[in-house]
């Protein structure tokens, strides 16, 4: 299973970025191969409008099963993501990627409805 995090850095210690569309990085953990990878999303800074849907497209291309973020996607991004099978968990802003993963495993994160 692949788990995606919106983050301000690229490793386990990186802080979760509470923003979805304008997150600096997307960190991906594959719990089968145990590999942590990331993609740089900072180019979204140059997007005047529609940051959410654009990041949603990138996420869709990565194909994770789970997304862990903070505030959650805004209206437009949410409309796109709800058409996929992706499970979204919220409220991890301010935690490290590691702590957010633990919280997800323990089931203490809120789900996006």
């Amino acid at each position, binding site marked *: 299973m692949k788990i995606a995090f919106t983050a301000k850095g690229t490793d386990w210690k990186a802080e979760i*970025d*509470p*923003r*979805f*569309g*304008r997150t600096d990085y997307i960190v991906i953990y594959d719990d089968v191969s145990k590999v942590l990878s990331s993609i740089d999303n900072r180019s979204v*800074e*140059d*997007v*005047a*409008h*529609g*940051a*959410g849907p654009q990041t949603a497209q990138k996420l869709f291309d990565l194909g994770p099963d789970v997304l862990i973020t*903070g*505030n*959650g996607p*805004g*209206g437009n991004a*949410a409309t796109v993501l709800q058409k996929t099978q992706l499970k979204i968990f*919220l*409220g*991890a*802003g*301010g*935690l490290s990627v590691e702590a957010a993963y633990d919280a997800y495993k323990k089931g203490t994160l*809120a789900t996006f409805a």
Partner: protein
Amino acid sequence: MKEIVVISGKGGTGKTSITASFSALAAGDLVAADCDVDAADMHLLLKPDMALAEDFYSGETAVIDPDACIACGRCYEACHFGAIHSAEGFYAVDPLSCEGCGYCARTCPTEAITNHPGKAGVWYSSTTRLAFTMIHAALGIGSENSGKLVAHVKKQARAAALAQGKPYVLVDGSPGIGCPVVSSLSGADYVVLVTEPTVSGVHDLKRVYELVKKFNIPAGCIINKADINTAIAATIRDFLELEHIDQLGELPYDENVTRAMVAGLTIVEHDTGALRETLQDAWKRVRLHVDSSTQK
């Protein structure tokens, strides 16, 4: 470092007056960010020095190279926005009408047209007359606020707060519920909703709260001019209770608010009575809430 965003949905509820008052109450502890860039006016109260000014680019504008243009008129025919006009046998782009779609460049047989980043305005890093740092921006004529500009202003404010060891970033949010507001709210620890008991005040409060709720951000509300319509004020209180929104306080309609504005002061600097007390109390509640939260 915690980010507190003040929004209202409707204009004219007193959002900026209240944001400026909070900033005066916590002048030593914060960096302010004015993300209400379309109608920025917090600077009128806080008199920032605009020590650092940088151009801000957003979107693109088409430019026709007159040396390469053969005046065929295809771009003129193609433009959906009426942005291309002919002048003395050549064609030129009116940057105010150009949407930067690039259609003209595709029709040009001599590749005389290219898109260039358009200057949208200027952003500033300032020290205010109350000695705290404020990040703000001014848009050029015909330019619009965007999620990009709001994200930029907030990023600069957060960086300044981190560098100075300030515990709060206080954001004067954008009006409405569009892209700039989404960007204002995204990443916030707490939202202060400022409303007034009028039909449009309640309507816009509910609309903007839908967005706050979607983002799972804890919120509190100040009812300004609470005594101008007691029936609608009661409806607002019911709504706040139903949605578990903190009731931060209620301000009466008071001409001292206008007098403070005329004097170029925040309400809490001008008024020493009940208005000041209510705002002090509201700010204390906001602080209590954000200081005790760890996740967002």
